[in-house]
């Protein structure tokens, strides 16, 4: 699987589609992108750089502006300010050329219910290049819908419609896929299949931008991530790098937790480590960048103070806990 590194550099905005577009290293590039609904900015000065060939997560709580950004990128609604490009093509000026190689699912995938899945794809293929018609069969095979392709969409489950949405994306033979909450409505098996499908598309060299509130799915699927809140990107970069900069948690199971807490408070460690008593001992939050020497120092202070240490366990920061650290609306249900 291709895993592109994420570098926060600014690519030159391509000026001549077809010549420089293919040379752009960014599949998606936005600068100061803004979309307002009345006084509320759903997308607020977004600076986004998505490297080609990567699986990129666009993560945010409910109402953060994820879907609106995708809608703006696709030309489904207009931007109020800023510049953007898809696959190196400035949009909206060269939107048609850009979208010819873009597949997208926005919100819940809906189709003409009186038509079969295959007929819906024929309708969409007719609006694309002639070769798109030849891709209908393979696309249905790839998403596992070939055996139900001649059933009416009205008889499809939510998961089947999601798959049909992905099949519709594949008609473009896309270099870039923008998938908005593709796991919505899927059962665990369906989510696993969708994840595999996304990863296989990344393995093909395509760029996948996955907008989701499912932190676990983003962490399992994506190389890099942008965290959006109140329409603004507050962090972006490779997941590993972002988590490396996150605070480290430490669980300490010990005797006399109260005295242990007091002992730590009397040292230089106490100034930088947040200590909270727990049922079995102490839960500590170390500052970002703390190395294992800090853990050893804590252990030494406690042992020298006569505290018995039964267990001392660093807890790896998950994307979820990091997400909760950096966003303002913790646990906002989607």
């Amino acid at each position, binding site marked *: 699987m291709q895993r592109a590194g994420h570098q926060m550099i600014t690519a030159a905005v391509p000026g001549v589609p077809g010549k420089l577009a293919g040379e752009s290293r960014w599949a998606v590039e936005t600068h100061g992108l803004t979309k307002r609904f009345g006084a509320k900015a759903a997308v607020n000065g977004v600076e986004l750089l998505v490297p080609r060939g990567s699986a990129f997560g666009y993560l945010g709580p409910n109402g953060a502006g994820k879907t609106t950004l995708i809608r703006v990128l696709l030309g489904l609604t207009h931007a109020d300010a800023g510049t953007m490009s898809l696959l190196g093509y400035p949009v909206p000026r060269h939107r048609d050329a850009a979208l010819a190689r873009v597949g997208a699912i926005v919100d819940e995938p*809906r189709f003409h*219910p009186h*038509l079969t899945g295959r007929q819906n794809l024929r309708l969409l293929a007719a609006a694309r*290049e002639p070769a798109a018609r030849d891709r209908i069969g393979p696309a249905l095979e790839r998403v596992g819908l070939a055996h139900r392709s001649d059933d009416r969409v009205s008889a499809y489950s939510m998961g089947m419609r999601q798959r049909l949405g992905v099949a519709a994306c594949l008609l473009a033979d896309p270099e870039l896929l923008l998938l908005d909450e593709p796991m919505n409505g899927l059962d665990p098996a369906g989510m696993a299949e969708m994840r595999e499908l996304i990863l296989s598309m990344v393995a093909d060299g395509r760029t996948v931008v996955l907008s989701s509130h499912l932190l676990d799915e983003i962490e399992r699927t994506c190389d890099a991530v942008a965290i959006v809140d109140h329409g603004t990107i507050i962090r972006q970069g490779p997941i590993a790098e972002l988590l490396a900069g996150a605070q480290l948690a430490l669980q300490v199971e010990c005797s006399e937790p109260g005295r242990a807490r007091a002992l730590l408070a009397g040292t230089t460690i106490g100034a930088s480590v947040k200590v909270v008593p727990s049922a079995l001992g102490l839960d500590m939050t170390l500052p970002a960048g703390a190395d294992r020497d800090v853990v050893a120092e804590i252990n030494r202070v406690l042992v020298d103070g006569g505290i018995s240490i039964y267990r001392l366990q660093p807890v790896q920061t998950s994307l979820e806990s990091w997400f909760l650290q950096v966003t303002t609306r913790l646990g906002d249900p989607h």
Partner: protein
Amino acid sequence: MTTTPAAMIATRIMELRKRRGLMITLIVLDIGFPAVFYLIRLIGHAFAPLANPPAGSGQIFTIFAAGFLPTFGFIAAVTVGCTAGSRDLSEGMFRHLVVTGRSRLALYLARIPAGLAIVASLVAIGYAIICAVSVFAAPTFIDYNNVNIPPGLSRAEFGNWARDRAEPVVCSLPYSGQVPANLPCPLPLSKSAVTPAQAAPAKLEALAVKIANQDYPGYTALFLSPPDSLMIEAGLWIELEAVVAFTVGLGLASLMGQRTVPLVLLIVFQLIVTPILSAVDIPHLQDLQRSVVGLAVARLEPSGLPMAAALPGVTGGVGRGAGPSLLPESATVAVCVIIAWLASWTILGAWRMMTRDA
């Protein structure tokens, strides 16, 4: 490289054709009514030819060609237009189509030939049934107010024929003058009473000749079976009305983003408001009245459809009474009005589709 417009049009036709409810409605309106009506008449005539006249007649052709088919064709066409203009949006397909990168204008324009292909073909089938029965099951006598009249009589021959059948002529044929109050007219007048020649007083014969002389222009407009030229002109006129209805429906539904409201608005406008506007003379708003597309289309109605004026409330009869219209309008102005409506609604619908959030 994108596909040819033909591929898009073909799939748009498929999308409309697969709507069962819509297609059943269209077939019933455009084909079902005339087919069932004529079938009943054909069967009735086949089993009891004396009691049931032949299925075809100029009068029935006129009623269908100037009244029912334009009216039902209008409803069918505007239904297809409103469906084509709104369903992509309401069923969530518009977004998928926009994401293909194909221009929104092209997406809109593809709907026009697709919808017209369905509308025009169904109207043509319905009209072909009417023409076929009118030609191949035509009567041998003209039925004029329940009086059987031989076709092709000169004015003198018509007068002689009327004199020989003075009583039914006086009792049945239209006459604007005074008629003696003591006439022995049976009510209702039966065919058996009028077909054979009957002796009558000279005064009654003179009145019959006078009536025949007055009705001769109306008689000459009647026919056993419609002439080819009239069938072609009427067919084109009905198709024109369907094209206008579809195009306006498509534009308005695209503009409003829904089907039901524009559909109701257009039907009410055409079947209620337009006849009212054709019947009243508003001195300072005559130009506005002339700009109503229903009146403009009615202005272009073939002159050989004489019964249209006698069909109140139907499209074909609007604005063209037995006498001069309240709103005289030249054919050129009518054509300009129709073109303006077609262009305006196409532009409005396309503009909304190009600017609408998907």
